[in-house]
């Protein structure tokens, strides 16, 4: 029997980025598998499984953490465990320790955590705070966007994440979240922030309070202006206002984990406390 429809192999195993994007152009229904922890768990939960999988594990160019000057390039297939071991940022260190379990971190990948922009996932808020860029590849080639653009636009059809690039950034970097417990489980809301005294810049990422991770440019600009960079200090009122602006940047929903009202309140408090923690660290740390 012949058919006009291209037959999709059940398991596609590209070995290069070009092979992967070429295969996705021909077989758009294939589900991209980084480490599989999310894709396989969803199938087990009864969410319809795809007719075929495209495994990224055979693509050597997607793996590993490399340092380039002051910056860091994180390949999409880097496991969360390997990113934790690489100690690239104090903010990521805390975030990754709170992300799922050692077993999951040994398998789940950086690309998989950010690719479909799920709001509860941990890494996108962190990469926003670290002012990262995302490199993605599709049939038309490779492109590089800021993390801010990536969280609002996402991947185009047939694209894969290639790497996350972190610029050099110094100073205070912190991740905090509200969750049912400190152990494994998605956060209800999270805030990541970096306050860089060299660049005199504030960058914030919010998790769990929108359709995807969210940047908070108005809050960043406000705090940047409200900080006395020479004295490395700011006011209590500015800390509170920064928290309020984070809530304003949020667009949370009420779902089975929490309410929109609580999520807004949580980012307000977390934002204020993060600025207080920064002040504390400058003067007593």
């Amino acid at each position, binding site marked *: 029997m012949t058919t006009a429809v291209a*037959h999709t*192999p*059940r*398991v596609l195993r590209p070995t290069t980025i070009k092979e992967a994007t070429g295969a996705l152009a021909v077989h758009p229904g294939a589900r991209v*598998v980084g480490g*599989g*922890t999310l*894709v*396989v*768990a969803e*199938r*087990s*939960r009864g969410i319809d*499984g795809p007719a*075929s*999988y495209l*495994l990224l*594990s055979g693509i050597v160019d997607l793996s590993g953490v490399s340092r380039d000057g002051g910056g860091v390039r994180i390949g999409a297939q880097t496991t969360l*465990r390997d990113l934790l071991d690489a100690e690239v940022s104090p903010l990521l260190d805390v975030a990754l*320790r709170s992300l*799922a*379990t*050692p*077993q*999951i971190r*040994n*398998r789940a990948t950086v690309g998989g955590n950010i690719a479909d922009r799920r709001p509860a996932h941990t890494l996108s808020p962190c990469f926003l705070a670290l002012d990262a860029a995302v490199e993605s590849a599709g049939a038309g080639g490779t492109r590089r966007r800021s993390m801010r653009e990536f969280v609002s636009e996402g991947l185009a059809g047939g694209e894969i994440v290639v790497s996350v690039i972190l610029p050099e950034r110094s100073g205070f970097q912190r991740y905090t979240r509200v969750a049912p417990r400190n*152990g*494994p489980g998605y956060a209800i809301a999270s805030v990541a922030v970096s306050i860089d005294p060299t660049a005199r810049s504030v960058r914030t990422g919010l998790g769990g309070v929108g359709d995807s991770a969210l940047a908070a440019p108005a809050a960043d600009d406000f705090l940047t202006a409200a900080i006395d960079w020479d004295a490395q200090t700011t006011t209590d009122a500015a800390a509170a206002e920064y928290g309020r602006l984070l809530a304003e940047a949020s667009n949370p929903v009420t779902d089975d984990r929490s309410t929109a009202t609580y999520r807004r309140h949580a980012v307000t408090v977390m934002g204020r406390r993060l600025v207080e923690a920064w002040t504390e660290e400058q003067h007593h740390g």
Partner: protein
Amino acid sequence: MDDERISLNLQVNGTAYHVDDAWYFETLLSVLRYRLGLTGTKQSCETGSCGACTVLLDGRPINSCVALAADVQGNVTTIEGYSPADGSLTPLQEALVAAGDVQCGYCLPGMVLAGSAFIADHPNATDDEVREGMCGNLCRCTAYGSLITGIREASKR
């Protein structure tokens, strides 16, 4: 249809296995238990939450329930391969027995394998380190106190 099935080559407990009629979406857990007969690896939540299905892949603990068998490269160690062939116990297993961390036993193969990787990385572990490092393994008998004691003591050896 023939093309619905795939073939797999897996290295488990030092033995090379070939499976030629696996489903393409089959998990490592399913292949271990139902095709290779290695039932020491336990099936429980099937969503990567509980750790009962923990095996080692190149020495690192993973949840075999959320690993596609088609996507597993490297050496898999199950509880059958970890435990001494003569029926004796490893120091870690002895420490868990001594601490009384054995009730229904269903979580134990996963606990032992995750614990073996943990103590290799954490000599003289503190209780807090054990709590964090073993957070991927649930015990529904709630024998967590004795688990912490057992892992902590084993990390001293």
